[in-house]
């Protein structure tokens, strides 16, 4: 890492170091459960006021990372420092107080809202815990937040079933925002929505970030949406971060073969581009996290893999200087910045 630790800690609102999360999974025929390492040695800085995208395929540990940062899951090891406070060793009371500043937006707006509570009650709920406000004060704050996310304040007595998916997701966002948090983890907030509604929510998140200067971790599998919204991006594969960097740098000059393959796999809604494009099509499936490959975890699907990849796990380092880091023994040469995008996404 060439970034000096001083500047990093100045900028970073959140610092994650060597984070690991294990799950116990039962194994047939055995009494003791097996240990599944869902997140393994993740280092990540989140700068104040930025949106950092965390992308990867299912099972790569992106959601688990988000939950472990918020201490919704207890990390097995590693540190999570939020604005100077170490969260992993924080007691229950202080952690509860800290939660006002760190909120989460969930994927499924149907499952994450209590159907027996009205929209107003749902949005006021965080204030019961986190703010010392009168009932009238809570009501006023909830109404203000509803307007902020594009919900009419008159709807506060309605119930979730009366709303569409997009509107429910606005309620979810309002719940996250009502306690004036500094940091939000948004876990696949638009994945369950239809494209036209998805774009409404993406625009809303963009606007809220600009207006409120939020710091956000945006977890998603849709690379086009992530690029649209995020300042920086971390790509995860099988529990580890394989590449992290500034958004445009990552998309135009991906250095990790997996990032390259991932970008190349995204279909582009233009038939002329699609038919011209040469794709990197990976063979095989993601290996089981119960028995990840030795050395580099991506090597079983990588077209560049050599002996060293099976022996030595590559560490996240910056080859070209600056913030762009990659964990690969044979990263792509950083090319010129002015290449056409389609070519980058397509060629090997």
């Amino acid at each position, binding site marked *: 890492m060439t970034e000096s630790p001083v500047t990093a800690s100045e900028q970073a609102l959140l610092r994650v170091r060597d984070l690991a999360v294990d799950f116990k999974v039962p194994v047939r025929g055995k009494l003791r459960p097996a240990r599944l390492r869902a997140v393994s040695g993740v280092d990540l800085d989140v700068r104040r006021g930025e949106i950092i995208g965390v992308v990867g395929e299912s099972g790569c540990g992106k959601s688990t990372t988000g939950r472990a940062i918020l201490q919704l899951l207890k990390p097995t090891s590693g540190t999570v420092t939020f604005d100077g406070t170490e969260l992993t060793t924080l007691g229950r009371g202080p952690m509860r107080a800290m939660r006002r500043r760190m909120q989460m937006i969930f994927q499924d707006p149907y499952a994450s809202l209590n159907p027996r509570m009205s929209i107003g009650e749902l949005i006021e709920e965080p204030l019961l815990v986190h703010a010392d406000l009168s009932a009238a004060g809570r009501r006023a704050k909830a109404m203000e937040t509803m307007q902020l996310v594009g919900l009419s304040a008159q709807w506060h007595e309605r119930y979730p079933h009366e709303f569409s998916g997009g509107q429910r997701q606005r309620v979810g966002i309002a719940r996250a925002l009502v306690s004036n948090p500094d940091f939000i983890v948004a876990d696949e907030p638009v994945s369950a929505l*239809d494209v036209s509604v998805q774009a409404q929510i993406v625009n809303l998140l963009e606007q809220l970030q600009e207006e409120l200067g939020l710091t956000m971790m945006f977890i998603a599998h849709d*690379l086009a949406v992530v690029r649209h919204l995020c300042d920086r991006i971390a790509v995860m594969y099988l529990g580890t971060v394989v590449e992290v960097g500034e958004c445009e740098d990552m998309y135009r000059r991906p250095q990790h073969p997996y990032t390259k393959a991932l970008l190349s796999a995204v279909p582009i*809604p233009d038939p002329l581009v699609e038919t011209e494009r040469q794709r990197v099509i990976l063979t095989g499936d993601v290996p089981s996290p119960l028995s990840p490959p030795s050395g580099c975890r991506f090597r079983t699907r990588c077209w560049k893999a050599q002996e060293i990849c099976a022996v030595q796990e590559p560490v996240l380092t910056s080859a070209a200087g600056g913030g762009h880091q990659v964990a690969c023994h044979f990263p792509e040469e950083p090319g010129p910045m002015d290449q056409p995008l389609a070519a980058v996404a397509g060629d090997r």
Partner: protein
Amino acid sequence: MALLEVRDLRTEFRAARGSVTAVDGVSFTVDAGETVALVGESGCGKSATAQSIMGLIVPPAGQVTGGQVLFEGRDLVRLRPRELRAVRGKGISMIFQDPMTSLNPVLTVGRQLTETLELHLGLSRRAARTRAVELLEMVRIPAAETRLSSYPHQLSGGMRQRVMIAMALSCQPRLILADEITTALDVTIQAQILELLRELARETRTALLLITHDLGVVAGMAERVNVMYAGQIVERAETVDLFHRPQMPYTWGLLGSVPRLDLVRGGKLRPIAGRPPELSEMPPGCRFAPRCAHVRDTCQGSAPDLVTTWETPDRGQLTRCWGMRPESEGGWLSTEDRHPYLSTEES
């Protein structure tokens, strides 16, 4: 004669009060060996259309109440169950979105494949087994022989979808209906499955009706596209034309809602305001009018038909929009810039 011709199809489902019309006067064709897409958002009727074609809409839940589904000239809607069974498999087969729920969890992959082969083609057990191995190899499943004894839960999502494709291909159908087959898959696995399907359809000259919400998938797979909205087809075009000269404001909205990886970053997305109408509360005029940025009084008054907005001897485009009618008929959009969604994000 087209391989499949759907004529004025109408499918209704039973609802709390009365019934709702999920598919309302849908007509389109698929030629032999051709890939045609049916694209739209959830609830637009695209899956109900596919299920109606396959005869999977069964009373009392729902019913095909009008129209014809002509497959090689025979109307599938009027066939008796026994006759329809003969068409399924050898004539048309279907691949569903979720291979976990459409595969039988208590039968091995091998048994499910051989069952189809024995029933539809009358193969012996041994011959069916040999053919099953060939099919699994055809969909690039490694160690096909040993995979025959696997149960669905032992396979990954991508592998299960390969098995579904193998089953769909097993009787060498002339048409495959693929309903959101990559929606549940990760993007690198989606790329594998689409590539496989593209190759197999080309090699076996099988026609494909691709049902999806993903315009990117359409762009890479289909030759022709039908855009559906609120139970009706609202635009039909060759794929290139649909993306490069979209006619219907709804299609503009769909294209403007998705950020594109190949274009320069920046600019806001242009979502469509509001949401699709409830099936039970269809607007009287154009069904897209309540969300349309270009709406005029005409649109709310009466419903437009799907009509040709331009054509040359070998191609053309159909649109269900008052504004896109020729100028002489009062179409106020026909002279406007047809790519409003591209104007800020050109590469």
